């Protein structure tokens, strides 16, 4: 059966989406990611979408769902590599992927996940500075 591979890299899961997504594939991926997180105790999920030529609301919803499910299981998700034309289209469509962290490259995404360590920042809050 067609399936998107979920790779393990230390405490992270690495997923590269290279095929045109359809329903079954999306459902399977959600199942696989949640299964792997609970099996391997992964703390981060990196999803590379640099090969995706479009992200419509269906794929956007899938990414948001994976991020939400992973968070509930204790893992943070970063979506990396979105093409500029896809970003323009997605925002115009009305989806800015709320709740999904993004980074430009795989490296930047990993830095975000590793750098986060135990205390993962959730959003755009300012760190209180100790004086």
């Amino acid at each position, binding site marked *: 059966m067609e399936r998107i591979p979920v790779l393990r890299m230390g405490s992270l899961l690495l997923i590269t989406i290279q095929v045109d997504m359809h329903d079954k594939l999306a459902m399977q991926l959600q199942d696989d990611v949640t299964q792997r997180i609970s099996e391997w105790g992964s703390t981060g999920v990196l999803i590379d979408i640099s090969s995706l030529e*479009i992200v419509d609301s269906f794929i956007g919803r899938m990414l948001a769902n994976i991020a939400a499910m992973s968070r509930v299981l204790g893992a943070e998700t970063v979506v990396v590599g979105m093409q500029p034309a896809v970003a323009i289209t997605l925002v*115009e469509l009305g989806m800015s992927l709320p709740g999904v962290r993004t980074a430009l490259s795989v490296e930047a995404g990993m830095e975000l996940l590793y750098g986060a360590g135990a205390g993962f920042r959730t959003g755009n809050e300012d760190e209180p500075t100790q004086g």
Partner: protein
Amino acid sequence: MSQPRVETLPLKTSNDVVYARQKVRQWATELRFGLVDMTKLVTAASELGRNALDHGKGGEMRIEQVGNGPRVGLKLTFEDQGPGIADIEMALKDGYTTGSGMGFGLGGSKRLVNEFAIESAPGKGTRITVVRWK
């Protein structure tokens, strides 16, 4: 003349939607659409194709090349025989959904194209026509 002027594709399954948007990309590539224009049109096709599938119980999409003087564009027509849309204005609002989606389908697609028209009535199905100029 290898390219037919009109092509009609079924929208009966999720895979059909994927195939239909690949066809739109192919046509847009042949017409040398810019990357952003093409991405917007293909994304709109995906949204509207899925709309016909999820809310219209399937239907079909027609692709045709349209010309208006020096302007060239692609026109996509989505037709389904589903329950139709009672309140079109409401259906175009962001966040409005009757299904499991996020409700960006119709209103969002409208923003991705240059021309957008809906014909629909309860029980009569829905026809959505969009044009994106190159």
